[in-house]
């Protein structure tokens, strides 16, 4: 039996819910690779999270805010015209763009800020790429009256100016990061530097399913509301599970949120779509799994874009939310075990998919899920008529209109 198949058989028998182990490992991936100053914080967070996730009072409080403040459950919507356009399986959208703040990011922020308050933390920091996680963090900080500092690469500050202004309106301080490549990875470095300098009072709300353990597991769990709702809704609407679930891959929070509840359902195929930028054959892309190899960055071992010396390479994507040289460790594990299939989409393909979805469904998707939309036709045809496919429409495109206008050669 080839190694991959053997691994898969082994993990299936073992049940996917057992990952990560107590050291935060998903096979060889994950872990806690941080400076000693932060280790006590990471361990305390793990302890607090392990307690909270089994605590009925915490779960009730969180689901109350998700319902009344975030607006959950988000609809599962049959994209009829897009389905007709491709002529394959029925395409459903999980409408995460209808959440308060316009993306899936707030699911996780709500969970983490409730945890932060339980831990007695009085100051919140976050990193952001596209700005969606920054807006979501600023939002929950405003709601609960905690000061908020958001680190954002200077390049992203320039290309996501509407979200920068939103964060400021919400009372957050946005600190542009001019080090390194001035994008998401540098924002994360700077947030970690802040945390190492303020370990006592500060809680770091990481927005993606990456970072040192317990973040990858915790973010995935808070985002799993997406997949759990999808399951219930699909059973109500179609009377059975979908044949495939599809999401774009940046760090992996929207993807794992949809994927994780389906991992133990062997009949459900898992498709992740990485950002191929100007093309996988160029050095301007953000496809860590297609074009990288395992290494250690930002507290975890995972697939990374890196050179022969282990220096992290610049990622490129038209979508700021996918412009990251790594990927969450659980997604790396799903790659090596063969449970997930990963595809990629170029900038141009994402722009086309954005326009098609806008015109056929009356929904302006964010550039991030536009990458998943670009592959949905092939997947729907492969599954075939009578099949069911769910795509995580993880965010709305309003924040991207300036970028899109520029790419299409228009002036707003």
């Amino acid at each position: 039996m080839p190694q991959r198949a053997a691994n898969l058989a082994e993990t299936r028998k073992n049940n996917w819910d057992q990952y990560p182990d107590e050291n935060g490992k998903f096979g060889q991936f994950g872990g806690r690779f941080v400076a000693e100053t932060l280790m006590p914080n990471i361990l305390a967070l793990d302890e607090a999270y392990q307690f909270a996730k089994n605590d009925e009072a915490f779960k009730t409080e969180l689901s109350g805010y998700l319902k009344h403040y975030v607006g959950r459950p988000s609809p599962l919507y049959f994209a009829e015209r897009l389905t007709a356009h491709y002529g394959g399986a029925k395409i459903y959208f999980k409408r995460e763009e209808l959440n308060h703040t316009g993306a899936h990011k707030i699911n996780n922020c709500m969970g983490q800020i409730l945890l932060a308050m339980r831990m007695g933390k009085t100051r919140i920091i976050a990193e952001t790429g596209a700005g969606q996680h920054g807006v979501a963090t600023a939002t929950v900080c405003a709601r609960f009256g905690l000061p908020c500092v958001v680190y954002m690469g200077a390049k992203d500050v320039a290309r996501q100016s509407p979200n920068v202004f939103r964060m400021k309106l919400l009372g957050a301080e946005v600190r542009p990061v001019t080090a390194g490549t001035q994008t998401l990875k540098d924002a994360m470095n700077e947030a970690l530097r802040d945390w190492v300098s303020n370990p006592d009072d500060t809680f770091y709300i990481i927005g993606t399913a990456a970072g040192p353990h317990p973040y990858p597991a915790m973010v995935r769990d808070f985002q799993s509301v997406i997949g759990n709702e999808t399951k219930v809704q699909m059973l109500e609407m179609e009377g059975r599970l979908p044949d495939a679930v599809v999401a774009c891959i940046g760090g992996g929070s929207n993807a794992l949120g949809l994927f994780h509840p389906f991992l133990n359902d062997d009949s459900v195929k898992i498709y992740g779509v990485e950002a191929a930028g100007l093309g996988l054959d160029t050095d301007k892309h953000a496809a860590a799994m297609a074009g990288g190899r395992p290494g250690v960055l930002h507290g975890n071992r995972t697939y990374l874009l890196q050179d022969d010396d282990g220096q992290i390479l610049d990622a490129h994507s038209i979508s700021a939310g996918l412009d990251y040289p790594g990927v969450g460790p659980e997604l790396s594990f799903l790659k090596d075990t063969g449970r997930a299939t990963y595809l990629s989409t170029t900038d141009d393909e994402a722009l086309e998919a954005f326009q098609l979805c806008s015109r056929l469904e009356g929904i302006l998707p964010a550039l991030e899920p536009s990458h998943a939309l670009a592959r949905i036709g092939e997947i729907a045809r492969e599954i075939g008529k009578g099949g069911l496919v769910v795509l995580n429409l993880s965010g709305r495109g309003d924040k991207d209109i300036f970028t899109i206008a520029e790419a299409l050669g228009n002036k707003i």
Partner: protein
Amino acid sequence: MTVARISSAFANAASQSRAALVLYVMAGDPTLEKCEEVLDALVEGGADIIELGFPFSDPMAEGPSIQLASQRALANGVTLKKTLAIAQNFRAKHSQTGLILMGYLNPIESMGYEVFAKNAANAGVDGVIVVDAPPEEDGELRECLKANDIAIIRLAAPTTDAARLPKVIEGVEGFVYYVSVAGVTGVKAIDVAAIKEKVAIVKAAANLPVAIGFGIRTAEAAHKTSQIADGIVIGAAVVDSVFAAHQNGQNCAQVAREFAMQMRAATQKD
């Protein structure tokens, strides 16, 4: 030699009633050539141990000084392999001075732990500090280093409490590096009175010399810190002085030598 070279550097300083002087330089900064001259000058000025940084694109625990030094080194084409070549040149000239590599895990993973440990031993490296490899994650690397008689040196931080300390010092050789402030390198200033007790606890538990670093920029701070430590580590201030000299067209080696002499004088116990 190797681990023994670190131990004798501390023993030698102690016999002279002073703290050992540990000075940090980023490999290949400000230029490949000047870096090697600076290393020689630091030894001439009185450094007992050299910490040679190898650059990483994402140095998460560094303040602006060493971040920028890392970027300059990468721009000068420095890799872990080239850092080891610099180490080898250094060792050929200086048989007594301790030599420690300091950096982040990914370049080491990329080279492979075993290959790295062998190459480092061949280059005459005595110890290794990996900032983002806490004891929970450094087991495999530690074994490879130990097989080559290279010390793994860990950082103990102000946040490391009594319950965690045994884990941090387990398997450490040479010395324990006590991080004087919760923060990144070279930003916050050291408060000697505040850490005195903590340093004594670490020293007693580890039964090894303790060197204090992060936050020592002046001779005054170096002198105060020397009173409570077996060694002091100065990084950002060395990097800044040398780079300023480089930018102003001064002789980097001379500036480095004077800096080391001044700090060496400050290590004397009262």
